[in-house]
């Protein structure tokens, strides 16, 4: 009888403990507002992080994703889209979260490694199978009769990288002659029949709608198109020069704090730098920043001459004001 009583007490205690433990576990929902082509990356990464976080804390994390042109996404967050984290295409767009919304601190870029860019990427060409227009480098895509697909730099971060890569190439070809670079990029945009608002839209235009001879694409997007979206129909061409893109990430402090998600949002971004996070980055055709993952995926990525925005354009703020602000060089070129 005493044993029975003791057993009941023990079972009750265990059940109670389990109940308390279960009751204390939280369900957390994060919103990651990102740029256009990162859908597949964050689907994989979110699953891994949720598993990691549940193991570590017992809490379950559901990450909702929002994707669009990087500039549009930044504007949406400033206008009230309550992102816990922003993972955008370029630092200028993240800067706007401070400049126009005071949603993050001014020194946000110092909070994580590699200036808050857990991976890098670049811009390459995607052409039709067999490369019927024989496109090999930037000067081939400004020729008459070549149809070029690239998104709108006003709304897309990837499009701005495309534009600046072309400009950097033209500068190098013309001894840093800005006028000739402008003429070169002007010719390029004369060959652009349609401007999508984001990189994924341009991929759709090129791969699914069959428009254009060449797509200026994120490297990761080009790999994805070659292997999955347009398998067997397209191939990658690596130009002689391109630009080093460093897409940054940040916690959107104001909204994360409002949602009580500061800790998990910070951990979410930090985990991008972990071995598992870097591995997922590599698998999704982004260039990891950690030494180990970089070495592991080294053979996956072509070697090419990459210029940095700070070196050629004096940083994002200057590049933005010169080229993409209203009345800037892009407006002058595209209105012609």
């Amino acid at each position, binding site marked *: 009888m005493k044993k029975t009583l003791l057993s009941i007490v023990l079972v009750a205690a265990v059940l109670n403990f389990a109940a308390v433990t279960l009751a204390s576990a939280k369900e957390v929902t994060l919103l990651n507002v990102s740029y256009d082509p990162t859908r597949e990356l964050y689907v994989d990464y979110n699953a891994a992080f949720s598993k990691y976080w549940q193991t570590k804390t017992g809490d379950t994390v559901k990450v909702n994703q929002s994707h669009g042109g990087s500039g549009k996404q930044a504007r949406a967050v400033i206008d009230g889209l309550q992102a816990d984290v922003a993972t955008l295409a370029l630092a200028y767009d993240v800067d706007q979260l401070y400049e126009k919304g005071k949603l993050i601190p001014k020194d946000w870029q110092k909070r994580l490694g590699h200036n808050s860019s857990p991976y890098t990427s670049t811009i390459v060409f995607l052409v039709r199978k067999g490369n019927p227009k024989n496109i090999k480098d930037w000067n081939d895509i400004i020729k008459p009769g070549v149809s070029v697909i690239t998104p709108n730099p006003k709304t897309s971060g990837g499009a701005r990288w495309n534009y600046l890569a072309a400009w950097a190439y033209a500068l190098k070809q013309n001894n840093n002659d800005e006028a000739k670079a402008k003429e070169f990029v002007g010719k390029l945009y004369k060959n652009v029949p349609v401007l999508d*608002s984001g990189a994924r839209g341009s991929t759709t235009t090129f791969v699914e709608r069959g*428009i254009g001879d060449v797509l200026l694409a994120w490297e990761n997007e080009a790999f994805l198109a070659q292997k999955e979206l347009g398998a067997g129909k397209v191939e990658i061409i690596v130009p002689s020069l391109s630009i080093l893109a460093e897409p940054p990430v940040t916690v959107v402090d104001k909204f994360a704090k409002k949602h009580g998600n500061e800790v998990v949002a910070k951990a979410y971004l930090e985990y991008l730098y972990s071995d598992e996070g870097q591995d997922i980055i590599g698998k999704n055709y982004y260039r990891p920043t950690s030494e180990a993952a970089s070495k592991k995926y080294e053979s996956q990525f072509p070697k090419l001459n990459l210029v940095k925005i700070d070196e050629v354009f004096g940083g994002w703020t200057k590049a933005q004001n010169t080229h993409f602000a209203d009345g800037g060089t892009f407006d002058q070129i595209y209105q012609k």
Partner: protein
Amino acid sequence: MIYKKIVSALVLAGVVASPALAFANDSTELEELRALVQELDQKVKILERKGEISVEDAATAKKATPVVKASEDGFGFQSADGNFKIKLRGLLQVDERNYSKVGGLGADGKNISGFDLRRIRPIIEGTVYDKYDFRFTPEFGEAKTANAASTSGIVDAYVDARFQPGFQVRAGKFKPYVGLERLQGGADLKFIERSYVSNNILPNRDLGAAIHGDVLDGRLNYSAGIYNGVVDGGDNSTAQDTNQDKEYAFRVFATPFKDDVSVLSGLGFGLAATHGNFKGTTTASGLPNYKTAGQESNFFAYSAGVFGSGNRDRISPQAYYYYGPFGVIAEYAQVKQGVSNGTISANLDNYAWQLAASYLLTGEDASFKGVKPRQPFDTDKGGWGAWELVARYQENNIDSGAFSSGTAAGVVTTARYADPRNNAHSAKSWAAGVNWYLNQNVKIALDYEDTSFDGGGNANAAGSAGAGSFINIADRPSERTLFSRLQFSY
């Protein structure tokens, strides 16, 4: 589509023509034709893609495009995210008022019957940054409220900051959070005129600031405010205050069962109070006049030279109850007013109360807010709108100390604060009426009200003793009113 047909035709032409071309061994022409087809195919695809992008852009733009609204709920426009809104509203009340004989305003001693534009109020209200509401209401109608001091023509002008549901701040000119019936919208009233509680005792509108909010899941509403202070039933002007003393108002109102499915879900009750201190003068007395139910003449006014002196404290328990088509509102208000005639002073207790009931014959649910007919009046579709019966009893009683008298040669001939020959001790009214809501915006109302007075008949009762003295004073003749109203509100 046209392009597709052209391309198809060209493709077919190419296929059909190819043997002939092959026969002619004209490969150059064939290549040109193929190139042309490809070029046209690209153009078609580009046009289609541009169409897709236009649709996407339009959908995106729609999310940021301001929304214009025009419906039975009113007219207005707002930003796409709803954070910025403007609503244009209005209230027009056209009355036809008939009075029985009383000591009134006309040359023949009658109140003047006729048409009256009671309220003409274009209302602009809106929201900025999602949290900051504002309301601006000018008045072009005839001010009927007792003791209306306002000459500015501005009924409401305030900003309301909704920081949290439980913590909101309102500042400007508005209805102080005191009277229950007063807080009911002018378009939602069950009777053509409010009760003595609202019109004669509690403040109408004042300048000031208040914190207020809903707590306990909206089951308890609270407010606390500081105001310039107004006389009983008063509507303060927008001018700067004329004295240092301010009035404080507090109110709690509970609706403990509001979210329950029970017979008590429509129950609300609360308590309001004001406290102020005001020192009047013989020329600016700071004291009220109390109007009859018909709102055309006074049944009580303090004597010339009497002025407010000391505290003015009000307390008002209040409640409503709505269940199905039935509704009732009960409200009591008492004011303790310090008065002086320059020689002696007193604290006088005047009070009023009302009990009003309503019943919707057409089955709509009654509520503190307006009535939305199940079927608007429409002769083509057979709708008759909503019909409502209403009944009310109300009293307004004056402290007998107001009529305390002095004596001369053994005969009471001097009134200390109010002359009992011209001012009644009380007004007691019963009313019945019917409201016809043609639709949510148009209402026709008909009220009959009978008011009897105690004293104030301006003469000694026939055959009684004490001619010229303050004893055996006749009652003022009853006031009987038949009011009708056409109301348009949106």
